[in-house]
């Protein structure tokens, strides 16, 4: 019986890992393209989840049935979040273009406070449970209890992650983003619209972040502090290596699984500290991550 529980918890952990990967891809994307490590990604995700919450409440008031959540609610929430990401990029990050990394990091740290406080004022700090995309039922598969919402989250996250990764590698916009990432001035010279690339990456990051937020909110409850998940996902990004999409995916599963195992053996309190211990160990042993390439810096 004990083993069944461990397997069950492992599955839960791997599924959470899927959502982590979805969050992490936003951080990696923005970092690759703009060289900004976005500490505020978690809070952007939280705001996206609130957009979804508000839209579903409005739809509910209009008396439109639950199908509208999929047809109108979800796409609209993702669109609004993407626009929100573009606005942040344009208003806050664009003026910092060309500044040193110190200033950029400080600005994203400032954003954490602004968005968290803003959410608390607009939506109050009460906990909400926006409607889950899939029912919160528990299914039994061969004696293992599996949370349906979690499984669906995992599937959605995996599909979106794969799509984004494929677009990044194959599409024209993806090539533009990678060109900008490897050399900004040359990208400019080759006629790539670099500020446009920045806008797109922020929109993609905010959109995927919002989706992750929408998947997490019904399980974790939606409060202004949902953004803290984004801080623990930093561990995933570092563990995977900042320039490796596959590395991030593996790291997300690993961190999710480690959290679940800690939860199983030591209890829920210790679970929240796992990502931070992981990140410290990784930074000490292998700062460029599992599959990342070591930084070579020219002076």
């Amino acid at each position, binding site marked *: 019986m004990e083993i069944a529980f461990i397997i069950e918890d492992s599955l839960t952990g791997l599924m959470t890992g899927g959502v982590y990967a979805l969050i992490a891809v936003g951080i990696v994307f923005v970092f690759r393209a703009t060289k900004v*490590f976005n500490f505020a990604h978690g809070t952007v995700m939280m705001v996206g989840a609130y957009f979804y919450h508000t839209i579903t409440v409005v739809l509910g008031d209009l008396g439109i049935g639950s199908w509208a959540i999929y047809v109108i609610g979800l796409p609209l929430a993702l669109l609004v979040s993407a626009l929100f990401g573009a606005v942040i990029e344009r208003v806050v990050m664009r*003026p*910092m273009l060309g500044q040193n990394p110190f*200033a950029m990091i400080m*600005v994203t740290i400032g954003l954490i406070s602004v968005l968290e406080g803003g959410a*608390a004022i607009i939506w109050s*700090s009460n906990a909400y449970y926006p409607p889950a995309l899939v029912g919160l039922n528990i299914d039994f598969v061969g004696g293992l209890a599996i949370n349906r919402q979690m499984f669906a989250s995992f599937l959605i996250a995996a599909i979106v992650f794969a799509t984004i990764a494929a677009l990044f590698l194959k599409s024209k916009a993806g090539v533009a983003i990678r060109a900008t990432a490897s050399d900004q001035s040359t990208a400019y010279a080759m006629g790539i619209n670099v500020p446009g690339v920045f806008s797109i990456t922020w929109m993609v990051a905010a959109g995927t972040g919002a989706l992750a937020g929408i998947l997490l909110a019904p399980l974790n409850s939606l409060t202004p502090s949902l953004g803290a998940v984004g801080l623990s996902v*930093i561990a995933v990004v570092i563990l995977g290596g900042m320039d490796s999409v596959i590395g991030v995916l593996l790291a997300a599963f690993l961190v999710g699984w480690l959290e679940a195992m800690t939860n199983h053996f030591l209890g829920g309190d210790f679970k929240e500290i796992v990502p*931070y*211990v992981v990140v410290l160990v990784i930074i000490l042993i292998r700062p460029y991550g599992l599959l990342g390439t070591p930084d070579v810096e020219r002076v």
Partner: protein
Amino acid sequence: MLIGDYKSTYAADEAIFRVWPVRFGLAALLVALIVLPFAANSFIVFLATQVAIYTVAITGLNILTGYTGLISLGHGALVGVGAYATAIFANWLGLPFWAAIPVAVVISSAVGLMFGLPSLRIRGLYLTIATLAASFIIIFVIEHWSSVTRGDSGITLAPASVFGVELVSDAQKYALIIPIAILAVLFAQNLFRTRVGRAFIAIRDSDYSAEIIGVDITRYKLLAFALGSAYAGLAGSLWAYNFLALLPTQFELQLSIVLLAALVVGGSARSLGPVFGAVFVILIPEFLKWIFGFLTPLSPTIVEYTAPANTITYGLLIIVFMIFEPMGLAAIWTRFWRYINLWPFSP
């Protein structure tokens, strides 16, 4: 008008307080600080003490972030380590304040050093993330090591006592804390005229170049961590003796962000910066409380928005100052006095 800056000795050229208006201003400030507890009500005295404690903490962050260029998101947690170490040693061993404070300083310094070790291998962003992790781990330990720290229910300690007099009133605590804070700020001011301070600045500006001209980067980065954390510990210790009761949640990430905001707003890599920053972050909540006081009759529930409004203001300050005045209030202050000095001829 102050035209020319005539000096005839090297000592005069190296002096910290070079011209008479600065010396006069400093003397006036000292007199004001001495008179304050007799002239002002206890709330003002309490706020001034708070400013002093924050000034010490931000000065430590200034050494680490402003001068050495290592962004720390764990400074608030290190203040917590100092505060808890003070409370624990004062409770367990009954140490008097003059022994508990140095012990707390040494302990926070050691903890800071431990989390600074990654800085040997890594720089910039990774280091910020390491300090972020440190912040969460430290708070977790404080919350869960209940047998020592009493966990979530918080810890209390006996007031500091000098020659049998317990320091309980705001004016008494002020008299203990202000002189220590002034000494701490002066020490930091002097540090950046020494070999060590110059090495910190060289590392910030370009660590490879610093290494080439013979700065032992490893040693000086760790020293910066030790010093910055020692200041955090001192601030925590004073914090403990000022409040006499501590909760782990006071030292969470939010405090670290507030300290960073203060540093950016006040002006990093300037000795006056932390002072301005501390005044600013202490006054903002009071100012907002005052404004919300006017708004309450209009809508009684508006008080609920005070805490989020604080959070937003701190964040906005970081962003606005980073975009428009990255050198902070200290730079504005310098420009202002330059303008006055050159007055009829200033542009």
